[in-house]
């Protein structure tokens, strides 16, 4: 078995197990028919989509498997960030204080998954929208920009989330 086939097999099995787990989560009380149908459809879907589910170059286990405790802590953290930022955004909109700028900066995160989560978190936080993400380069529309400087923008927008995510997917 070549390393390539082995890696394909690992990708297939992990896609299959994620699909089956989510089927069992949503299907309600399991009976024989539901489990058989779930296994079959998970196998077909995994065979069709394992290439996209795990990218070919993304072979580091630490890049894919998160630290579960910190991932659970990230949810309340991001909810808190969303609420804090949305009160500020609403105040700015009512007071008419707006100074929209496009800023760009680069993240220090290595894992693709962590970069996607960072991009989503930046978009979820009111006041900033990630417009483009290209490898490690983010283009962000900032509603009330304090400066157009790249390093400052990264410090204000992404640094704390980045540090958190760097510990989840190291």
């Amino acid at each position, binding site marked *: 078995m070549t390393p390539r086939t082995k890696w394909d097999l690992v990708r297939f099995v992990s896609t299959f197990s994620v699909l089956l787990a989510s089927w069992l*989560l949503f299907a309600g009380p399991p009976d024989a028919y539901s489990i058989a149908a779930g296994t079959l459809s998970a196998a077909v879907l995994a065979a069709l989509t394992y290439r996209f589910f795990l990218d070919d170059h993304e072979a580091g286990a630490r890049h894919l498997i998160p630290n579960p405790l910190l991932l659970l802590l990230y*949810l309340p953290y*991001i*909810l808190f960030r*969303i*609420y804090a930022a*949305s009160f500020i*955004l*609403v105040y700015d*909109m*009512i007071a008419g204080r*707006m*100074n*929209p*700028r*496009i800023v760009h900066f680069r993240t220090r995160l290595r894992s693709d998954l962590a970069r996607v989560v960072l*991009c*989503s*978190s930046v*978009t*979820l*936080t*009111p*006041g900033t*929208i*990630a*417009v*483009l*993400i290209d490898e490690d380069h983010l*283009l962000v*529309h900032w*509603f009330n920009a304090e400066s157009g400087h790249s390093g400052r923008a990264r410090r204000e927008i992404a640094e704390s989330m980045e540090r958190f995510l760097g510990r989840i997917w190291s």
Partner: protein
Amino acid sequence: MNPAYWMELILIFLGMGFALIGNLGVFLMPDPYTRLQASATCSTTSVISVILAAMVSSGFSPTTGKLAIILLYFLVSSPVATTIIARYAWESGIVPWRRPKRRLGKGGSP
């Protein structure tokens, strides 16, 4: 009244307020990006508030777990849609609105 009831009420009213301001922002803002800021981000907060209120209201039950999963999927899917809209606007060449620079005196050079 018990605290859960008040918590629920506060969250529902927060959701209503954010939805209202987000929808007003769509009409008042000058360009697509700022409109997106107002609508997408404020309505995200409002949907999260309403789901949290429903979670508080249903107490500790299977419904809460289902709502938590809905919240999780919403947190994954909503920013992707927002980013796709912003990316389309960016790639079709829409220039973001900037606050005009203050002029030096009347009729002076900009």
